[in-house]
């Protein structure tokens, strides 16, 4: 793990949804990251003022090019710049990759249930990508809770994977606006709907939940109540100040 700041060069910037952008960064000497880890990004203004934020990596592996997906926060300090102003060829500083808890390793044999709320999909996508690339036949299932179809990240890739991958199932829950022809009306994710769309307790899945605080608290509470062992549930809150109330 590196705790030193390193220079990263922006090699790509692609809109990911109505409010977000996926940014590719080339980091010299980067020797890989685990699925689920994050990096810190430091921006420096021309008078030396700096701001640092953490972003989950969407990619995993040994590449020198890593990707993050940044959702623009209203009143954000760093995210509006990353989503709107940062250009290919720009440089910024990164630290990491960091984290050894909310990670999935290609040697993990257990089935995995991923539960994403909104932009909480990012570290879970890195797990899906690592799993697809690995010689690991464990079952992965993703439940992706979204405000609307337009808010979804990695839509084409998830669509393709859910058609073609024998080891990944993707389920969606739409909370405000569903796609045309969707069987269920948009509604807040309920305990009943959640438990009906995830791997059962008996499958003994490792569970990863990432989203805003209230989402993570609610969902993890339901799972514990339904008998999923607390020790099998790993959680991560997304968006540094996604405050409680």
């Amino acid at each position, binding site marked *: *793990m590196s*705790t030193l*700041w390193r*220079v990263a060069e922006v090699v790509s910037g692609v809109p990911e949804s109505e409010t977000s952008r996926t940014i590719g960064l080339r980091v010299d000497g980067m020797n890989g990251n685990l699925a689920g880890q994050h990096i*810190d990004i*430091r*921006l*420096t*203004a*021309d008078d*030396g*003022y*700096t*701001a*640092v*934020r*953490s972003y989950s990596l969407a990619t995993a592996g040994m590449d020198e090019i890593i990707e993050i997906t940044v959702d623009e926060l209203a009143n954000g*300090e*760093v995210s509006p*710049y990353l989503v709107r*102003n*940062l250009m290919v060829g*720009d*440089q*910024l*500083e990164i*630290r*990491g990759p*960091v*984290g*050894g*808890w*909310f990670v999935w390793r290609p040697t993990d044999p257990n089935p995995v249930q991923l539960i994403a709320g909104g932009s909480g999909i990012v570290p879970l996508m890195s797990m899906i990508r690592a799993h697809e690339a690995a010689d690991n036949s464990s079952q992965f299932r993703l439940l992706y809770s979204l405000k609307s179809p337009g808010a979804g990240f990695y839509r084409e890739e998830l669509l393709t994977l859910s058609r073609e991958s024998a080891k990944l199932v993707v389920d969606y829950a739409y909370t405000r606006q569903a796609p045309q022809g969707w069987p269920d009306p948009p509604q807040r994710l309920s305990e009943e709907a959640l438990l009906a769309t995830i791997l059962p307790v008996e499958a003994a899945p490792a569970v990863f939940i990432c989203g805003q*605080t209230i989402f993570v*608290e609610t969902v*993890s*509470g339901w*799972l*514990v109540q339904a008998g999923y062992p*607390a*020790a099998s*549930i*790993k*959680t991560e*809150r997304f968006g*540094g*100040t*996604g*405050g*409680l109330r």
Partner: protein
Amino acid sequence: MGIISSGFHGKRHAGNPALPPGQHETDTFPVLTAGPAPNIATADWEFFITTGAGQRHTWSWDAFMALPQVEIRTDIHCVTSWSQLGTTWRGVSLDTLFDEVETTSEFTMAHSYGGYTTNVPLQDLLDGQAWVAWEFGGRPLERAHGGPARLLVPHLYLWKSAKWINGIELMNEDIPGFWESNGYHLHGDPWREQRYS
């Protein structure tokens, strides 16, 4: 010299001398935990201190509440880079809890309900630097923030302030706790930016 991002101005609320390096101020209280929040009724709650010599001191919730309660006004700093300034808490000083404890150990491991651990040198817990807190902002501490009670060691990054505190184990050597075994710094002083190991 760092890399300059032209066109980046920032919000400048980090110029406050109360903020350690790399921190920004927030007036919300984000929740960061590794897993589901345990549910502990005060009737079942207990706080312990164990010594290297095998002695075990325990307090029930009622015994704990009968101890001198103090008000704490302090800044808190999370390793994920937010700080909240001037927060108010109520709880029992670790000095009070350690009053009757005899020890030559220099290190401790804080243990939480739910299995979380974090290591803190004993000298960081004494002399008015640490509390077991049960009230935040004038209201009982919410479960998501560690209720019924959490450790409060505000001069270190907040992961050291173990939520759902159950007790403190005295140790003769410094052994990493949960986050400290997962890439985070053994000590965690925000003024020295001891974030990662």
